[in-house]
């Protein structure tokens, strides 16, 4: 039971952008790959498509237009300061053809590949991603919970995404401790 949550955290950590580099693999590199031995993933990730579990003065059913039914993430960078907020996160992302495998990097990258000479995670982008009413709002708040007495929030912008996205190429994740 312990391992499951820890795996979730590991997966979150390994997708940190600062360790990733998008790179297209040329034909000569591909010719050195004999067979594939990774996995092909298809599926969907949905966030609060039909609301969340919290009900209070701020959160509620999606049918209640006076309430927010999306997920919310907030963080405080200064002690006793205000809070950055990513609010009302909801929608879904469906994909087919996300691939994952471990790949040896022994050359290329302006000579850095030969110096690296180790394995990386290769995440093959799905050709097509369909976003279905995916949205979130960037804001700042006066305290950690929007249900706090006297809470004030300033919304900066709301991002909404729907439709098809085309993503090609591979994401190579280099472990560099």
């Amino acid at each position, binding site marked *: 039971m312990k391992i499951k949550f*820890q795996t979730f955290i590991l997966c979150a950590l390994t997708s940190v952008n600062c360790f990733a580099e998008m790179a297209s693999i040329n034909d000569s590199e591909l010719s050195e790959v004999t067979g594939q031995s990774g996995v092909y993933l298809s*599926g969907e990730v949905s966030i609060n498509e039909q609301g969340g579990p919290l009900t209070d003065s701020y959160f509620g059913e999606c049918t209640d237009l006076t309430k927010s039914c999306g997920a919310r993430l907030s963080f405080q960078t200064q002690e006793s300061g205000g809070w950055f907020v990513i609010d009302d996160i909801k929608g879904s992302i469906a994909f087919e053809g996300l691939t994952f495998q471990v790949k040896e990097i022994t050359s290329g990258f302006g000579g850095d590949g030969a110096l690296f000479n180790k394995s990386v995670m290769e995440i093959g982008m799905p050709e097509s991603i369909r976003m279905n009413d995916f949205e979130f709002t960037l804001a700042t708040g006066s305290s950690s919970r929007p249900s706090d007495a006297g809470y004030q929030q300033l919304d900066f912008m709301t991002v909404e995404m729907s439709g098809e996205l085309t993503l090609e190429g591979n994401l190579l994740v280099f*472990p560099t*401790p």
Partner: protein
Amino acid sequence: MLDRMELKNFLRIGATLLTILFSHPAISEMKAMSDDFLSGVSGQSGLTIDAQMRAEIGEFAYFDDGKGLALQGVRLSSALDQAQTADFQFEIDILESGALSWGFSSENVSRFEIEEIRFVDAPGITAALDDKSLGGFFLDFDIEGSITLNNIQSPGVEGGVYDIDFSIKDGRLGYRTNGNELFLDGMSLDVSSLGTVLGVNPAGELTLSLPNFLAELKVEALRFSNNPNNHGVTIDVDSLTALPSYGSIWANLDLNADLTIKSGGASGSQGMTINASAVINRADVAWGDDTDWLNAGAWIGALGVTGSVDLVNLTVDVLDDTDVGVNYNGVGLALAFERLDASFHIQDFVLGETKSNIDAYVIDGLTPVKSIGGFDINLSFAESDFLSNVVSIQAGGNSSAGYQGIRLDTQLNISGSANESNFVYNEDGSSLMFSGLEAYVDGDITLDVTAASGTDSYDGLRVGFEDLAFGYKVEGYRVAKNAVSVDDLKTKDLQAAHAIGGLGFSPAMEGTLNGHITLGPGGQIGQEGITVNSDLYVTDGSMARFIQSDGTGNGVWLSGLNYDVHLRDMMLDVTSDGLRIYEGESWSKMDVTDFRVGDKDSGASFGRLILESYTVGSESIISAGGAGQICIGGIGGDSTACEADDGRWEDRGTQGITIATTKFFKNSIESEDKRNRITWETGRTGEGTPTQTNGTGMQLVFDNFTTNDGTDSLDTYGFRSDYNIDISSTRVLKKSNGPDSNGVDGDKGDEKIMNADGTYVYVAPSALTPADIANRPVGIAVRTRTHFKELDFDRVNLVHPTGGDSTLLYGLKLQNFDITTDITATPLD
């Protein structure tokens, strides 16, 4: 090799002992049958013996090359009062066929007991009270049945052909160590073995053949006592309350088996060597919780089990421990075998089913049951270059539990390099093979029945691990629809192995295990169940989260793994929903020296990870049935509505596994080293070498995360994760033009469609037929719903080894999350 004369002498001595026991003038009585009794019997011509026996043998020892296994305090008496006799009636008759019939029946419930089992250097030496012992065993029984020695000869065997038929009722079978007992209570056993052959073959080997063995075991309760005043009783003699129970057990067995024993073991001139094989025609095994054996209570069971077991050259010797120093544990009974092949097919594994439904299913095979599907388990134990297969049974158990107990000095190796060992999960016509399973253990396992004492000992059966090196790995997964057999499945494509969400399964793991799991009686619901207390420590280990299928072993590895897990009052109950697991309190720490990509020892590292977890009152329910019918990529309750929303409708069948967990992450308790924290460390001294120093780098710390209901004072919702696990078809699209890695040609966007022989083609979407859609590739489909009201991180800190803590975030809060992921993994071609 056992000389025939020796064998005959052995049998003669045994028969003489039996005769002495049963005819002892002080305790047995020859009775003439009354005229009234005989008048009701036509053709009666036998002999009836009423025997009242109370026997006690100080020591019965078996010596092998000068070292002995001694059964001490061997007694036969009444079970109710051991000062009274065990009463039997025997009827001996010659049947018309010429067969000799020996009927037997109990007149009361008898007890056969062995008080101590010790290893001795010489017979008859009085042992000191604290001399190590395996503990004691007892069997209570009320038996009725017969053994008929047929007037025929089995070809090739000099001996007899027996029809054996007996029933035991009101039985108990118990194990006692240091005043604590674990026993089967209310046991009944029905056995029929017609045509049993017992004799000597031309090679001089003792031969036992069971061509028609049938047995059914029913156990009302598996009970535990920590009161030394109790001995083989259902009701505690002091508190007058029923002893706590783990639940009920039921087993049904139909097999045929052959066994030979020859003289001479693995060491010295004495000992024995056993060869055996068995075919299981049908077996059913189940555990019931708070059951009335009809419609009340719920059961977990493996039903419709078939299989075979083949044991080659099992040697039995009494040998001294080969370990030295503190690991030396004296003489033991060494069981070593050259090879053991075991294959089992479980047709249906049921969770939360009633006994009535199980009984109906066993009879007709059609009654619907709450099944997660079936399993095939194939294990081949064979010697490797480094390990043999030997278990030495030594006396004493865990050193702090008392002088009685069992220590198993164990070395076992499962070979799977040619995929002779594997594990298969079958559901709704699809199969997932964990291919090429290899595993080993090497170290000590201890068994003690312990009583709660302080913070180190708990009520129940304590299974201890002492420097037990262990490891397992699979070469990859093989997945197929409608595979006709395990061999057919072996021909399917090998794909990468990865951790499966919800199951906690990793494709490979190894390390050294210390600690214990103590299984106590009673759950959280009702009177019965299992309570687990445990402290486990894995050190110097590694764990794979992903392994490529190319045979290189490259993958994603947690290397330099040190992992400890602590469970307090984890209670297991079977309910109509399935297996329910409640965790009173649990905490763990996983310290990974290197999170590597590539080779587990030399792959590039992301650095060190430490994951600490502390929960109170968490729950999990494992139930039958997977995701069922679902809409992926859209919203809709049926295929029409789903496709109208641009979704893809999938029917994942009625079987599968659902795991629903609720975790309550609690505030840290510094003094007890319990907390929720995630630490990532990089830039350590010696980073990139095998000798980096933990604690010398820069750390990013997500500290003290907790759950609540959106207010600090309440935490009733927790962090919930619901997993639906199925083996299911999915759509796989070609990502580029031209041949793939297997040389199969197609255009970008074409669908992969499987052929019956395991090969595949690519078909343009416009040309897809209903038959093509039915033959989409099969993969591991995991639907995960994670939802929580609030998850609070106290702080996010950056920690410098000399500069100390610097707070990056003074708070991080996640609220109102409900995330569903639906991922199907198939091979990458």
